[in-house]
């Protein structure tokens, strides 16, 4: 799968989370190196992280996926998204969201972003076969 004209993705997270998620997407879906890139905040101050996001984002359409909304990654992504090409920042990334991105990244950004958010939310499920039954009144 080549980069082409669609949006590119940049995953930004704490520790090795971003590179691990990108690696998982490549194993599952197979994507070109520049379609989805991982970046860690490890050892980077706010300005260095913001500059790195800007550099990796370049001039094209980019969605920056961050691990959580209350973090230095999200903050740097929001600041960096004020310049460069077309940008969106989605916080709380998960693997199903990234897979949806890979297969629909040619959609218009204003349709793609809500689609990814919905996919990310709806992919979270719970299974509790041995949980106590609810107490009824």
């Amino acid at each position, binding site marked *: 799968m080549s980069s082409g004209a669609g949006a590119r993705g940049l995953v930004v997270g*704490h520790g090795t989370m971003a590179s691990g998620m990108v690696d998982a997407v490549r194993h599952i879906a197979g994507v070109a190196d520049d379609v989805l890139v991982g970046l860690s905040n490890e*050892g980077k101050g*706010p300005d260095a992280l913001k500059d790195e996001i800007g550099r990796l984002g370049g001039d094209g359409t980019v969605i920056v996926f961050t691990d959580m*909304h*209350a*973090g230095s990654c999200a903050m740097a992504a*929001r600041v960096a998204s004020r310049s460069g090409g077309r940008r969106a920042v989605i916080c709380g990334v998960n693997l199903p969201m990234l897979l949806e991105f890979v297969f629909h990244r040619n959609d218009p950004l204003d349709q793609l972003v809500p689609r990814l958010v919905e996919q990310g939310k709806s992919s979270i499920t719970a299974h509790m076969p041995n949980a106590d039954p609810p107490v009824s009144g």
Partner: protein
Amino acid sequence: MPILLFRVDERLIHGQVVIGWGNELRPERYLVVDDELSGSDWEQELYRLAVGDGTEVSFLTVERARQELLQWTASEERTLLLTRNIDSMLRLARDRALEGRAVNLGGIHHAEDRTRVRSYLYLDEADRERVRALEAEGAHVSGRDLPGSLKVGLEDLQEE
């Protein structure tokens, strides 16, 4: 409740502060003391997004913070006070305003002329001088990124 934490962290409000320290100290308010940020509405909005749970966030200049400090320490609100560099904390501490207070160095990252103290803490000579000045003003300075981490004492902070 007095101010629970005086912290220097380049990232100000971020994961370690909101989640790491936040779960430990359960703040009702963050005070960000920074001359530049106090005049930037859009940046303030971004930091408020980072909190996201309705916890109050205020942005003030160092001068304003010095005027309010006594009132805050006497307040019932559980408060974390943050600056993004040691210089702002030192200006806040002048005239022994932080006498007897613990000042936490929680995040100053690698840059030219800074040498490593811990993975989260790099200091240059000017910062080391500011640490000495903070101590001379009666504050007790140590390094620690998270509540569960070991404190880095003054001797280590002064090492090149």
